[in-house]
């Protein structure tokens, strides 16, 4: 069972609140959901939308075609009227608005819409666009937002700008009626969200009015509540990473504001006081979140904090990560455990600052001058983000080297419902690696078989660090004799990591090992790839999925899984199929087919299924997805 719901409107006017209310209500009925958010790099006014997929099974991706479209304004209709199958809930008062009058609509979108409408013999008003959708089977639900707002305004005796804020809730109420779930679920979500009595009343009335506007189609989807006996949480990717880090023992986070990374740091700051179960009983610990003057300071202060024995991290995206390169090289040279959470967005340069991408994998793997071990891991959904973030703090300390945790923008700002007990959050193992037991005879960079020297912290023993090549004590040493050993010692740690890190953190395999087609992917395209296994079975196509999680050290053992396949299909959100390139570098195996997308938008379930059919039945070697 799957229903995709989409709500769109101008940014800064409550789209996200409405999506959250609707999502909370659905989640309370026992359903899972995944909400993908798309927005421009602006504070207010431009078109933003959330696509929320509802299912009785755990999901981590959405469809590109919505069953229900809730349009708060006219622009939303023109942006999405070709991508809705069942219902358009829209503002009756904007029916006559012509596409030409919407100045915020980008030229390319306007041109496509105008051509499509004209070719279908229609004019270019909102009503024409709705008629276009209706011809293709959708039903329309006009809602008189204006008079509903007026009624609420008069009833609550509040000014119109305040009342206007409930527009989105009207849309949420209308669509909730279609699901057939108890309206009290929505009311409870409102109750939990709004503490202020006026806003509570306002949203309750708006939800009710919306619900009543859609009475013609009441209970259309006939959803029944599902009984849940355990707890579920709803979080986005920024929060997931923050939660993972906090559980993992993070106590210092440095950051410079950047989209889409900053929300993680502000979350940690808001939750900086944590309870700790120590030998002496329960203590309260404080996490310091340090907002720096730039990303140079963010990475280098995080490194400094790590030298004191503090679990330490930063979070950034491409432009900031570029500035961190020199610091990461220093951390590699000085064997400092520091975690860099890398939120990948549309690049190069400022690129598509609020959109997603996977185009920085090679950069993450090669960041910083010189040869040193950088452990690079990538998560594909919120549950993985939490677990990987906590795990990353462990491996940073065990191997005493920078760890880069890749999360894409689409995962960062999307949200989903997770079963709390799958997180096993109160049972997380902390491994601090080798700690020095003798601080008197201490050598920070003591040679050892696995390349790992016991760590002491600043203040506990005498030690030196230097970005220059150094001897075991940490003093500068340029001799070949020392260089040979010290250089090898550092790089040997990667072999140790490769040997000792459990396979679950390296890669995951989904589907039948004997399937003749295999999707090779990583990060956000993993979820639509897993979804495709069942969908393609219905088309008698046998496909399995190999998700790479750790790119350095690379799990070369995956080459076994790729043997004797008819097709190896690389699915990625970039141009060069960077994940597949890394596979080739490490195993000499090349994909046979590619499905690539670099629009900045995530790959959707339905979009990938169509592309896979195109690849497998049409023997199309390289399919480019363009959101059309």
């Amino acid at each position, binding site marked *: 069972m799957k229903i995709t719901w989409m709500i769109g409107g101008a940014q800064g006017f409550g789209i996200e609140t409405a999506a959250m209310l609707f999502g909370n209500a659905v989640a309370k009925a026992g359903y899972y959901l995944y909400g993908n958010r798309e927005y421009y790099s602006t504070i207010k006014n431009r078109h933003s939308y959330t696509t929320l997929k509802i299912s009785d099974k755990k999901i981590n991706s959405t469809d590109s075609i919505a069953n229900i479209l809730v349009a708060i304004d006219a622009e939303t209709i023109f942006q999405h009227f070709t991508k809705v199958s069942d219902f358009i809930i829209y503002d009756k008062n904007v029916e006559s608005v012509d596409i030409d009058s919407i100045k915020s609509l980008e030229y390319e979108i306007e041109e496509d819409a105008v051509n499509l409408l004209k070719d279908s013999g229609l004019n270019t008003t909102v009503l024409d666009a709705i008629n276009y959708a209706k011809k293709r089977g959708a039903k329309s639900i006009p809602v008189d937002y204006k008079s509903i707002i007026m009624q609420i305004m008069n009833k609550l005796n509040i000014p119109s700008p305040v009342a206007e804020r409930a527009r989105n809730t009207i849309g949420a109420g209308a669509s909730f009626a279609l699901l057939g779930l108890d309206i009290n679920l929505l009311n409870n979500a409102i109750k939990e969200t709004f503490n202020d009595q006026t806003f509570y009343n306002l949203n309750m009335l708006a939800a009710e009015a919306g619900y009543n506007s859609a009475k013609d189609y009441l209970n259309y989807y006939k959803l029944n509540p599902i009984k849940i006996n355990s707890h579920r949480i709803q979080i986005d990717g920024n929060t997931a990473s923050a939660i993972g880090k906090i559980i993992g023992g993070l106590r210092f986070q440095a950051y410079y504001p950047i989209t889409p990374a900053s929300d993680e740091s502000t979350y940690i700051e808001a939750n900086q006081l944590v309870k700790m179960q120590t030998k002496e009983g329960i203590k309260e610990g404080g996490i310091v979140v340090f907002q720096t003057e730039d990303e140079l300071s963010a990475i280098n202060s995080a490194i400094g904090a790590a030298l004191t*024995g503090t679990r330490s991290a930063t979070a950034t995206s491409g432009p900031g990560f570029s500035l961190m390169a*020199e610091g990461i090289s*220093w951390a590699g040279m000085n064997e400092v455990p520091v975690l860099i959470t890398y939120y990948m967005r549309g690049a190069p340069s400022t690129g598509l600052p609020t959109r997603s991408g996977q185009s920085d994998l090679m950069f993450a793997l090669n960041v910083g001058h010189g040869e040193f071990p950088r452990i690079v891991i990538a998560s594909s959904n919120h549950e993985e983000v939490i677990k990987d973030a906590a795990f990353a703090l462990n491996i940073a300390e065990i191997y005493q080297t920078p760890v880069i945790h890749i999360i894409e923008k689409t995962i960062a700002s999307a949200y989903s419902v997770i079963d709390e007990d799958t997180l096993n959050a109160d049972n997380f193992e902390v491994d601090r690696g080798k700690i020095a037991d003798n601080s008197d005879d201490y050598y920070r960079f003591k040679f050892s078989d696995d390349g790992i020297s016991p760590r002491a912290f600043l203040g506990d023993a005498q030690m030196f660090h230097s970005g220059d090549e150094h001897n075991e004590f940490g003093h500068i040493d340029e001799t070949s004799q020392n260089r040979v050993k010290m250089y090898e010692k550092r790089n040997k740690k990667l072999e140790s990591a490769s040997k000792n890190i459990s396979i679950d953190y390296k890669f995951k395999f989904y589907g039948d090992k004997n399937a003749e087609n295999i999707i090779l992917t990583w990060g956000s395209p993993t979820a639509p790839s897993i979804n495709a296994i069942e969908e393609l079975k219905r088309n008698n196509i046998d496909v399995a999925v190999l998700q790479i999680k750790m790119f350095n050290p690379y799990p070369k053992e995956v080459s076994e899984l790729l043997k004797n396949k008819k097709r190896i299909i690389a699915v990625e959100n970039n141009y060069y199929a960077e994940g597949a390139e890394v596979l080739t570098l490490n195993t000499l195996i090349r994909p046979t087919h590619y499905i690539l997308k670099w629009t900045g938008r995530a790959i959707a379930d339905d979009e990938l299924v169509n592309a896979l059919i195109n690849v497998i039945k049409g023997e199309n070697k390289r399919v480019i997805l363009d959101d059309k």
Partner: protein
Amino acid sequence: MTNNIDGIKDEIKYRTEYTDWCIGCGNFGILRAVELSLEELKLDFHNTVMVSGIGCSGKLPHFLTTKISGVHTLHGRSLAFASGIKIANPKLNVIIDAGDGDTYGIGVGHFVSAGRRNLDMTLITHNNGVYGLTKGQASPTLKRGEKTKSLPKPNINDAINPVALALVSGYTFVARGFAYDIKQMQHLIEEAIKHRGMALVDILQPCPTYNDINTNEWYKERIYNLDIDYEVKSEKERDKKFNTAIQKAYEEDKIPLGIFYKNELVPTYDDRIKEDIENYLDYPPAIQEIENKGKASTIPSFIEQHRVV
């Protein structure tokens, strides 16, 4: 002496590193003044970290005979590393040793921000007007029109005024020393370390190899000791003492040495963090027991705020 596992003698730990600065370099004086200050204040690796930048000055921690821990960082970033160390473990004294290129050139953003935060740290800047280790290019403190011996053309940029920049950035202790006056430097460094707040000791330093203008003789003709009441003891004194310091910072024909300004009334970064984390100083990030019997000690109850079911 014992042998460690690879047969290299423990000399790497117990010998004095060879000090590879040029003969006559002002760094020797600064090194000695730092050593004397550390000894006088009984500072060693148990309670103190020396963080340095890149250039001739950056090697100073390695050359100290005092038992100290040193972190030799990146060009311009010593303040950033130091801030992380200090915030994570406020029990440590953090002394930063950097060059004028480090401090006022590539790292000037960190220099300004360190003042805004008023972290309780001491910054000692070796100010010699040139980038010595790269063969004598103009540093941010070389005056416009000056042509030191390895410059092909006279310096095209105006000089930064370190004392004035520190003052307007919020440094709560600002002093200037001279690299050949060890006694005065020792005094300034000790006062800076004892000061609660962000301290700058800018040290004028001849570079006998590349700066043939600002030589020992050149300085000797111009330097004199400040005789001002520099310490702000109540809020109402602040403007007057700050203005005097600024005025003195801009004296050019004669170069004042000593303490320009001191103000302990401004809350330090520690104080500010304590507003949010009450037990921060007693239980800072570095000493929190994040592990308990192999498990995370952090209780994940904060997750409950996200429950929908």
